[in-house]
């Protein structure tokens, strides 16, 4: 008996054992039934593969999972260079007086209330403020970055930007302003508000 000419190419023709049979049956069905969705999935797999390879080589590549402290968007190279401190450690830095506190909140919030001696560099206006802010942020002192509170990425972003500018001695106050006030630590309060530009970058 002559073999019939090869029929439609299916994955099943190359079957060997139950698991492969099942898998190839599903693949054959999927390709026949949803040809474009299967191709879309292949594009996605290609994107993951190329993206992973690129990320491994990129100097500012990201870890695949959040960094310690549940922070996202921190390049692997910066992970250990932006340590988080708590309110107690921040207080001892404050009392020692060597560190400069940097408030990354908006100018209006800074004007209302802030940590004494803190410099305001609103992160939401970083691109326009940085040229002036550069002179206010010394490179030889520890900079303690703080913002609003939990899940506030402003200080982390500011830390990244400062690391790129060559700053080295940076710490981020975890939970920022909210933890500072909860610990009843000193603030400069201006209930009536005062010119937002005073002390602000």
């Amino acid at each position: 008996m002559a073999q019939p000419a090869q029929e439609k190419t299916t994955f099943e023709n190359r079957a060997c054992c139950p698991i492969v049979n099942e898998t190839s049956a599903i693949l054959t069905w999927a390709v026949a039934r949803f040809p474009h969705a299967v191709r879309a999935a292949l594009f996605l797999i290609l994107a993951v593969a190329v993206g992973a390879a690129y990320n491994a080589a990129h100097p500012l590549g990201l870890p695949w999972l959040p960094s310690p402290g549940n922070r996202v968007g921190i390049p692997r190279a910066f992970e250990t260079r932006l340590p988080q401190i708590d309110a107690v450690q921040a207080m001892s830095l404050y009392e020692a007086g060597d560190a400069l506190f940097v408030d990354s909140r908006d100018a209006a919030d800074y004007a209302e209330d802030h940590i004494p001696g803190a410099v305001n560099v609103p992160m939401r206006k970083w691109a326009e403020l940085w040229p002036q802010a550069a002179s206010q942020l010394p490179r030889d002192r520890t900079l303690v970055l703080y913002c609003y509170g939990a899940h506030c990425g402003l200080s982390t972003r500011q830390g990244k930007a400062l690391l790129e500018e060559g700053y080295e001695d940076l710490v981020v106050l975890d939970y920022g302003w909210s933890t500072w006030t909860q610990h009843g630590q000193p603030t400069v309060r201006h209930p009536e508000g005062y010119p937002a530009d005073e002390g602000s970058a």
Partner: protein
Amino acid sequence: MGSRRFGTPKAIPPTREAPEMRAIWRLATHPIFLRVAGILVGATFVYASLDKIARPDRFADIVHDYDMVPLIFINAFALIMPWTEITTGAALIAGVWRRGAGLLATAMTVAFLIAIAQAEIRGLEIECGCFTVSGMSTSEATWDLFIRDIPLLLGAMLVWRKG
């Protein structure tokens, strides 16, 4: 398998009562029009991906701002999505498996529309992150962007359905 179909029928037949719609449909499904639409959509996707690929960390910050992706997936999402954009865009430009690429482009555009709409409804004042992640962009996620994305969606859907 059964004869159950997913999705829309192959073509929405233009009604006899509207010959001008029939003419538009004939133009829109003309091979040359489809090819040009694919190239335009593809170029948009490739262009949009470049800045995100250059700075995945900044793109992750923007994804974080949209407050839609669970925290543990944000970094992974920020690493994969720009590469999905560039792969899809390159395929649409080159015309390789363009119906599959059109499907992926449609899915991504729908995701962008949902992201922009939820940001706007919740009143999040965030950077768009559409074409640039530099932080210098003044373009916020607003309804203007939503409207701007509609032609992109139509083009992507057309390539997906009629390729």
